[in-house]
């Protein structure tokens, strides 16, 4: 970085980013009534007097949602409140049947946690709003010809996770959100699907002169429903704020809507018209005081979490950091890997990891390997064949193609397709033919031009259709030419 100057036009800024994440819990029923959770079902088929806010109805907290929220609080190393309070957050909107959302305010379920290198400010429980669908070109309520409400989503249990402003780049924000997503997925408490809205992320963004500790005016970015949009949205906002400050202006506190189509940010509401939510304790609910049994149950339900798993894979198996993280963040890959490793203790962990994270992922994409025709035992066997030099690397890839398409054991596929390494006698004859056929190259190799070896080896590999090991072939050629 260049020298920091004092003129606003050239000053270097650094972003200060905090995230607010809403996670729909994967419970059987809604937060405060007995309606089943659903996604994509016929509108208004999962409703009852309670979640429609009929007069006289009362909320009854969902024990499973509380269990999941406690698991999240523990997984994020939070302090759990011995007694947390539900509040009413009041505002009028058609997607809010009671005219208030039951949420938590000054005494949340848990606070002061950490995930990776980011501090977690708080984690609390609340209910989701219903879904508004606006007819008309704008797709938003302003300018819509009509709006309809689907109450299926209304009352879905939500956990809100708020971080401290510990992130300093869009990429870091994206990376941390991936870790959080992997963690929640591993806990099994949510589908964490950003497309479907079961994981939603808002970002609080401000910038400050690089190296200072002051906090600038922050804006809130909404609607970034993918990792890519999150990073793009934050980057766009950082640029916008830099331009304002460089131009001598002041950043205004406001809520911004990110348009994924255009990448543009538009103002939703500014501070002057911000809501007064008139929070007060929800008199229809008693304080949430987890019993020791509830805490024990939540603790017992915690699996090994991605951050810990990545660290273990790196430390105990010597995997490269990126490989270890990939296996840990995509826990289905990690599970497949560890199961393959267990199937054949002799396999080199790093080689096997590379086969899983590179070759297998290339063939399966996002499909969970458990649901593919490739079994962990079969992949372990294939890797063992390669290590034992019974099959060449490139032939092994062909075997994996066949396994990914139709299953089967590697040894059977190798035999069936004649993909085993060429035998010594067969290979010697081929080597002799190649030397005869390439006198120029032979001359150059003898003269010490190493590159010329490629032509000879290439010819041999072509003839064996890859069933030979490149290193072994080279060794044989040199031996033949008396260069051994």
């Amino acid at each position, binding site marked *: 970085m260049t020298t920091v100057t004092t003129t606003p036009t050239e000053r270097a800024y650094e972003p200060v980013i905090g995230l607010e994440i809403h996670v729909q819990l994967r419970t059987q029923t809604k937060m405060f009534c007995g309606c089943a959770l659903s996604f994509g079902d016929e509108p208004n088929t999962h409703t009852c007097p309670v979640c429609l806010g009929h*007069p006289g109805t009362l909320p009854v907290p969902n024990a499973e949602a509380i269990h999941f929220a406690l698991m999240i609080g523990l997984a994020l190393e939070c302090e759990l409140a011995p007694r947390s309070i539900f509040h009413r957050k009041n505002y*009028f909107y058609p997607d809010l*049947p009671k*005219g208030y959302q039951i949420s938590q305010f000054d005494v949340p379920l848990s606070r002061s946690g950490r995930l990776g290198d980011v501090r977690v400010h708080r984690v609390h429980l609340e209910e989701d709003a219903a879904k508004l669908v606006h007819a008309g070109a704008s797709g938003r309520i302003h300018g819509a010809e009509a709006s309809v409400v689907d109450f299926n989503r209304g009352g879905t249990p939500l956990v809100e996770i708020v971080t401290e402003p510990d992130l300093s780049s869009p990429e870091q924000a994206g990376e941390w959100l991936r870790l959080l997503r992997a963690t929640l997925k591993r806990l099994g408490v949510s589908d964490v699907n950003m497309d479907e809205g079961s994981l939603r992320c808002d970002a609080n963004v401000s910038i400050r002169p690089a190296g200072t500790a002051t906090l600038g005016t922050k804006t809130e970015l909404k609607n970034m429903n993918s990792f890519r949009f999150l990073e793009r949205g934050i980057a766009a906002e950082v640029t916008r704020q830099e331009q304002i400050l460089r131009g001598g202006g002041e950043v205004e506190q406001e809520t911004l809507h990110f348009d994924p189509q255009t990448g543009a940010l538009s103002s939703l509401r500014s501070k002057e018209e911000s809501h007064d939510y*008139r929070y*007060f304790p929800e008199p229809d609910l008693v304080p949430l005081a987890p019993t020791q049994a509830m805490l024990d149950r939540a603790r017992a339900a915690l699996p090994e979490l991605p951050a810990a798993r990545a660290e273990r894979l790196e430390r105990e198996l010597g995997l490269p950091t990126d490989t270890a993280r990939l296996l840990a963040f995509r826990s289905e890959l990690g599970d497949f890997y560890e199961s393959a490793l267990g199937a054949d203790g002799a396999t080199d962990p790093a080689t096997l990891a590379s086969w899983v994270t590179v070759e297998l992922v290339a063939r399966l994409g996002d499909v969970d390997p458990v649901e593919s025709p490739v079994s962990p035992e079969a992949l372990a066997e294939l890797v063992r064949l390669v290590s034992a030099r019974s099959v060449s690397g490139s032939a092994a890839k062909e075997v994996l193609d066949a396994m990914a398409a139709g299953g089967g054991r590697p040894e059977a596929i190798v035999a069936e397709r004649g993909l085993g390494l060429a035998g010594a006698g067969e290979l010697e004859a081929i080597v002799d033919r190649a030397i005869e056929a390439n006198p120029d190259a032979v001359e150059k190799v003898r003269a010490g031009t190493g590159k010329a070896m490629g032509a000879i080896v290439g010819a041999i590999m072509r003839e064996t259709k890859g069933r030979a090991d490149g290193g072994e072939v080279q060794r044989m050629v040199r031996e033949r030419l008396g260069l051994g």
Partner: protein
Amino acid sequence: MSELLDLSTAQAAQSVRAGDLSPAELLSAYREQAEADELGAFLWLPEEPLGVMGTAADAPLAGVPLAVKDIFCVEGVPTTAASRILEGYRPPYTATAVERLAAAGAPMLGKTNMDEFAMGSSNENSAYEPVRNPWSPDRVPGGSSGGSAAAVAGGLAPWSIGTDTGGSIRQPASLCGLVGLKPTYGAVSRYGMIAFASSLDQCGPITRDVTDAALLLRHLVAGGRDPCDSTSVDFPQEIELPSSEDLGGLRVGVVPELSDAATIDAGVKTVFDATLERIEELGGGVEQISLPHSEHGLSAYYVLAPAEASANLSRYDGVRFGLRSGDGDLLSLYERTRADGFGDEVKRRIMLGTYALSSGYYEAYYGRAQRVRTKIAEDFRAAFERVDLVVTPTSPSVAFRLGERTADPMAMYMSDYCTVPMSLAGLPAISIPAGLSEGLPVGFQITGPAFSENRLLAAAHALEQAIGFDSSPARGKAGAPAR
């Protein structure tokens, strides 16, 4: 026929059980009275009498029909809380209290009039019509459960249920010469009871005598904690039918802050003092105690109850049920629906409550009122270390004239002066008729610790026997109880 209507419900139930009277006969006798209602007590009667539960004769409540305040949701039955905003609304479900009493053999006779959303002390805030006091038709029956009280006092119903937030069962019972019981907060499920102020609302009986009140309460709490109401609890004992005839050994506390307040009318005070003498005659000891914060109860109440109400009434937005006004635009939908649908008193309280919760005012109003509430609860706790029961007048005055206080909300709010502290503390309280002043009934309020309903009912029963109040307005006026 009139003999049948004179039967107490306990007597009627006994006749039904003995086979001398059929539940259908009983129902049709009351239905005839209710149809001829000139008091404005009923807002709705079924077109056809509702079926009397199949085997009502052996059901515990023997088919004795029940008048239900129109604040209770009943599936498919118009339920308005006496508000225009719920005109035409038919709930898709039934309130737990109504369901439990029906299951025990008390079918619903009809829905009774009330102050809109239970906000009022005279029943003049009904969006439909005011209710008249059977003791004097140009006077109010009290509120907000005015219709339930008038129906029972006027002989249109054998018994009824109402709701009490700051006195809405006890004050109309007092003004109509009836027994009204507000149970301990949490004793009776609030599920299906349209909310006014959730942390205060309780359902309870309004009846001709203490035994009937005990009988209804028994079946309201008998099912135990309602899983649909997180704030409901298991009642620790069964409710006993009271038989006590004396108050031997009972320590009764009198609260000068409430009973000697300037707001208590002289006639009411006279009856109150006479009742204290009766307590002593019955073997009870009367001593003075102090509830130092109780005089601030009304102020705290008129912050807390409107605050909760402002949120509870947000759901009436024209989107899903009830009245819908406006020109199709969202803001106009909200504004017109609520402007057209709510009456003045409801609007006043929504504004009061919204203000009290607003950012910058929350601590000064809601926060401070909550602290007063805590102080009042502590006062009672301290008092109950010295005495078994606390007694006060129920209402500062007898029934006032229709229109007398409508122009002065503060005067109207004073009606709750003696009943609000118990509501804030969540305590059970019963009002029994103790005599007449100006020819109109005067109520006497007895309060005990949480879940002391059996103690309250026993004491109320002993006093009731000694006082011998006649709950029939016609006879009661003719001969005031002898002293």
